[in-house]
């Protein structure tokens, strides 16, 4: 099996993508709601990743 070398950002985005899909599928009842919720979760993941990254960068001194 090939070995992957991903950056922190790439790995966290992949994690966010698949987790958002599953959360969207299991929590909502219509397809439209599912897509919207999955997109919302993904946006939250990305926002949290970028926000925490900046926090760590600025806090690092």
């Amino acid at each position, binding site marked *: 099996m090939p070995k992957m070398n991903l950056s922190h950002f790439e*790995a966290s985005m992949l*994690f966010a993508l698949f987790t958002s899909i*599953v959360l969207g599928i299991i929590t909502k009842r219509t397809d439209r709601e599912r897509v919207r919720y999955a997109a919302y979760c993904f946006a939250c993941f990305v926002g949290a990743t970028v926000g925490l990254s900046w926090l760590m960068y600025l806090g690092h001194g």
Partner: protein
Amino acid sequence: MSFQYRAGSPQRPNEGLLSNKAVYDKLKLMAETTANDAQPPASKWAAVLALAWLIPGGGHFLLKRPGRGGLLAASVAAMFLLGLMMRGALFQPQTGDILTTVIYCGGFLGNVMSGILYLFTVWLGYNQPDTAGHVHDYGTKFLVAAGLLNILAMVDAFEIATGKKD
């Protein structure tokens, strides 16, 4: 404000009082509602739950929800395969202090919940030691997260099988 009964009006006196048949119907409805809230028999959901564990998304396929089942299967499998390609480590249950027990037993359960993906990985001899490095670390987390996502899929399949959800 007061209301008076007039001949010919649709409202009759004593309409608020329930007849014996109405009381019987209401009690019957309440009994049926309580019966519906009770746990359905295991024969209705056990096979679905077992298949949902063994094959991610399989429970949804069994319940004739192929679209959702396919997406769940793809997501869990992709997460697990990415974990393997990042050379993540699989947990073995260990006991000791509370933190060790929670991490290693919890991680082991998370791995096992991926079903056939985990079983094949172990059968084919995957044995990655826990090495330092952020890619390995992400891989280990991806392997556990795949199992956790499959637990969510199993709960969803269970709710569909028991009629709590469409």
